């Protein structure tokens, strides 16, 4: 059962990613990207990361996809389509070489895996890890400053002169 879910999600995710890259209509590519975000949330669920799946849907499907679609609509370039540039063949070669290297490494390496069953509801455990003793409190604060700076920078960049 678990294997079937993984294979279906993996095949649909790869097809959606190929559609984002290969479709000529920019808006349809953006919709395929939203679908890809949803299937990646499903992959997180198969990995027992329930909190991360919900965060994926909130942040990516809810926020980033809206930002990207607004960007497509404000730049009236969608009628030109998403064509490939001069670097298409070198990009294909680089991508295939990297893919071969990564797959070869993933298959031949002896990964040390643990047999301990994973935590089931991860939300409380992630909260303790983030804010508890010896946790990630400083990175959380730095991330808040980073997002504030990014929002202010976006407003300054996009404002009419």
């Amino acid at each position, binding site marked *: 059962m678990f294997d079937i879910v*993984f294979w279906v999600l993996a095949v649909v*995710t*790869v097809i959606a*990613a*190929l559609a*984002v*890259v290969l479709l000529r209509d*920019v808006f349809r590519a953006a919709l395929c*990207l939203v679908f*890809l975000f949803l299937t*990646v949330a499903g*992959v*997180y669920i198969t*990995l*027992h*990361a329930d909190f*991360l799946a919900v*965060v994926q849907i909130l*942040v*990516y499907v809810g926020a*980033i996809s809206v930002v*990207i679609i607004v*960007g*497509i609509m*404000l*730049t009236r*370039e969608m009628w*030109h389509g*998403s*064509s*490939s*540039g001069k*670097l*298409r063949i*070198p*990009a*294909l070669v*680089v*991508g295939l070489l990297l*893919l071969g290297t*990564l797959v070869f490494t993933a298959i031949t390496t002896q*990964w*040390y*895996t*643990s047999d*301990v069953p*994973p*935590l089931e509801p*991860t939300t409380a*455990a992630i909260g303790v*890890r*983030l804010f508890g003793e010896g946790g990630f409190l400083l*990175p959380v604060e730095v*991330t808040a400053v*980073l*997002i504030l*700076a*990014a929002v202010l*920078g976006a407003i300054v960049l*996009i404002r009419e002169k």
Partner: protein
Amino acid sequence: MSVGLEHYLILSAVLFCIGLYGVLSKRNAVVILMCVEIMLNAVNITLVAFSRYVVPTLLTGQIFAIFVMAVAAAEAAVGIAIIIAIYRSRGTVDAEKFDLMKW
């Protein structure tokens, strides 16, 4: 053969390389940004898979993935703002015509 760590690593490698091909070959800057998001998602799958199969109770990979998501959100906002600013001044989002700093 049941699904294990290698399957997730290969899935994430395939997604990363599709995104890399898109980033290198596309001309529309918004599509390049979308392909960068695919690459970030592939890296997140790797982090969560290692967290699930190597240290199932420590959750370190999931916390890294949360930080990657926060940085990805900031990157998307700033990237779209830069693309719209360039579109206002040059009238195009073709990445091959962004030659302001070339001489």
